[in-house]
């Protein structure tokens, strides 16, 4: 395959596809020829053998039909039946003629076939020659009473049987031969088919092998240099410019490899210049390969700009240094403030939580107040009723007091009367006492007179003594009565006093009862107004309860918000600390910029992504 190296890729492809196309043409031609052969076999079977078998079989059937009709003719008793049978025989004979003509067109040019067909012809002709005689005999049978005609006809049919059997056998032999011929043609067809399969398989195998060979060779010739250049290009894309292209080929791949080598060299040059700039040599310069070499031109412009930027950078670095310092201090301050804010927010959250719980307690207290207000309202209602009862009771008391006052007055009157009567009794008693005194004195005088009378006055002295004793007893009795009267007097006086005091007490009791009634009425009014106030309180407590629910809900929301605020403050704190770290890093970066000799460009580039990541975290 060495000659392939000197061909262009288009030529290689054309050669390969041409070889494959030629092989396919060969396969097509062979296939066509084989199919033609098979078609012939099929045609022979379908047009000749099958037709021969059909026609000979039909003829055999037709001859049998004619014989059956003839036998029926003999047996028939009437002329119309016979006429009908004769017409049938004539029709079947026409079919035999048609089948014979068809067979003669397709029959093989074969001796045995022809001999058999001639045998059939001659035998069938001799059989049919007998028929007119038999028919005439048969026609006689309806009118023939002797039966001779029938017998003659039957004899004729028996005699002609030999010729019929011969013709029929010849036809069967023909059928068998044609079947054999058809089998032979089928076997021929199968043989041709197998041959064709073998030949075509071999050719196709050869063509596939050849095609694989050519395709492998061509693809190898194209893919190898392209793969090598691809590897080099990948390494170039990774930044490795120290590459050498080693492709020895005269086709387009070779040319591409050469151009690729030039490109590698060009990139090496640009890379070296960039490396020099990276090392701080800003005087690097590239020679443009052509006027359209925008990379080199741009690179030179860029180097020029860099030189200018480097000058400006020293000024900016100072400012950045100051800026980063300011940022660092500001972020520190922010961090402190945010920490303070976070702690404040946490305190606030705690306070809000506490307030929320207090509001909950307050709400519970409000509910309790509402319940108590309802209870108090009920109590006030019953108190109003009690007040009414009390007023009624006071009225009753007043009536009772009035009653008592009347009674007491009556008692006082009675006592006064009693006192007067006692007085009268006292007067009477005084009179009795005086009488007793006088009686006593009289008795004493009588005693004196008796004593003066001496012995004669002794009996009188006894009487005088008795009188004196009686007077003494009267006096003692009057004294007792007087003392009793005195006690009665005292008692009546005390009763009068007591009744007066009782009257006064009743009057003051009535005044007090009226006052009490007034007080109870006022108390009832107050309780009624208090009950109304309590109902208002109850309504207010319910409203307050609703309000407290709203406050509780609001406090919960505030609590939630504060917690979110605390979370946010924490996040802000972490963000601020991130910012602080970032400021530190920025400061170290600017320090590195100030002293570029201490750090390399690579480290600066690597240090950037983490800062960005932290920035991303803070948002």
């Amino acid at each position: 395959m060495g000659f392939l190296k000197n061909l262009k890729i288009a030529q290689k492809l054309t050669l390969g596809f041409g070889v494959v196309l030629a092989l396919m043409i060969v396969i097509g031609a062979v296939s066509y020829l084989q199919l033609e052969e098979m078609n012939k076999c099929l045609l022979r079977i379908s047009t000749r053998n099958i037709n021969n078998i059909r026609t000979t079989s039909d003829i055999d059937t037709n001859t049998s039909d004619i014989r059956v009709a003839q036998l029926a003719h003999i047996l028939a008793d009437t002329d119309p039946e016979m006429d009908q049978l004769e017409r049938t025989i004539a029709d079947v004979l026409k079919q035999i003629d048609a089948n014979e003509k068809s067979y003669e067109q397709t029959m093989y040019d074969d001796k045995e076939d022809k001999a058999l067909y001639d045998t059939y012809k001659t035998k069938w002709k001799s059989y049919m020659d007998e028929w007119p005689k038999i028919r005439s005999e048969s026609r006689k049978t309806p009118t023939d009473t002797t039966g001779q005609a029938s017998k003659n006809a039957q004899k004729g049919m028996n005699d002609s049987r030999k010729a019929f059997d011969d013709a029929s056998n010849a036809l069967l032999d023909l059928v068998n031969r044609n079947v054999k011929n058809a089998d032979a043609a089928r076997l021929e067809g199968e043989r041709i088919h197998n041959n064709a399969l073998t030949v075509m398989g071999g050719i196709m195998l050869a063509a596939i092998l050849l095609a694989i060979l050519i395709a492998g060779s061509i693809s190898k010739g194209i893919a190898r240099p392209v793969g090598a250049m691809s590897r080099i290009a990948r390494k170039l894309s990774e930044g490795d410019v120290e590459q050498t292209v080693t492709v020895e080929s005269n086709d387009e791949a070779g040319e591409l490899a050469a151009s690729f080598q030039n490109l590698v060299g060009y990139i090496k040059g640009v890379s070296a210049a960039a490396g020099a700039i990276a090392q701080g040599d800003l005087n690097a310069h590239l020679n443009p390969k052509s006027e359209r070499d925008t990379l080199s031109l741009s690179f030179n412009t860029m180097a020029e700009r860099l030189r200018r930027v480097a000058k400006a950078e020293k000024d900016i670095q100072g400012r950045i240094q100051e800026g980063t310092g300011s940022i660092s201090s500001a972020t520190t301050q922010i961090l402190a403030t945010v920490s303070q804010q976070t702690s404040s927010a946490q305190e606030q959250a705690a306070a809000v939580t506490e307030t929320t719980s207090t509001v909950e307690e307050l709400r519970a207290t409000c509910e309790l107040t509402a319940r108590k207000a309802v209870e108090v309202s009920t109590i006030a209602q019953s108190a109003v009723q009690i007040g009414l009862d009390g007023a009624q009771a006071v009225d009753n008391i007043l009536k009772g007091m009035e009653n008592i006052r009347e009674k007491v007055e009556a008692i006082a009157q009675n006592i006064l009367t009693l006192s007067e009567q006692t007085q009268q009794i006292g007067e009477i008693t005084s009179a009795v006492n005086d009488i007793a005194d006088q009686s006593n004195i009289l008795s004493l005088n009588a005693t004196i007179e008796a004593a003066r009378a001496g012995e004669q006055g002794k009996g009188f002295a006894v009487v005088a003594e008795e009188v004196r004793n009686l007077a003494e007893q009267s006096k003692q009795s009057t004294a007792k009565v007087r003392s009793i009267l005195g006690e009665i007097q005292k008692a009546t006086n005390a009763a009068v006093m007591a009744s007066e005091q009782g009257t006064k007490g009743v009057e003051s009791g009535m005044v007090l009862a009226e006052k009490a009634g007034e007080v109870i009425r006022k108390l009832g009014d107050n309780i009624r107004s208090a009950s109304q106030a309590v109902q208002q309180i109850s309504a207010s407590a319910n409203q307050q309860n609703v309000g407290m629910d709203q406050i509780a809900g609001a406090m919960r929301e505030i609590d939630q918000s504060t917690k979110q605020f605390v979370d946010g403050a924490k996040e802000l704190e972490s963000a601020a600390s991130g910012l602080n770290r970032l400021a530190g890093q920025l400061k170290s970066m600017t320090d590195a910029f100030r002293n570029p000799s201490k750090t390399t460009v690579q480290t600066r580039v690597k240090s950037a992504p983490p800062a960005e990541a932290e920035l991303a975290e803070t948002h």
Partner: protein
Amino acid sequence: MPKQKTSAPGTSHELLILGVGEELFGVNIESVQEIQILKGLTPVPGTPKFWAGLINLRGRLVPALDLHSYLALPGINGASYSKIVVVTGAGLTVALFVHEVKGARRFAKEAIQPPVRNASRQGVEVITGITADLISVLDLNALLSDPRIAVGEDRP
């Protein structure tokens, strides 16, 4: 009226028991004329204190003697006297102021003991004895013979 003499020993005396204040006095019942309720006393000026006044006794003026004052007894004054006992002795008839008259009692001569010497200086002369139940026996003759009594009343 005849002069009464003290009873001889071995005989009995019938005494009228007079109550003056706390004290009980017994006088010979034969010296007593009558007993009356005190009324119609007319004080007489210029007489000793024990002379309470004059009493009109059925048309006859009788001087009233306040025994309590005369005997200078302690205790009550003579304002509440209710009765008078008209007695005679030594030719005089006087009304004695008493609170009450207890009646007449008979005493044996032995039952009357001599009076206590120290009892009362002024009364010693008129008290002649004392019974077991502390009744002072008053000698009306001695009493009415007292020179202090004589103040120029009418003499019977």
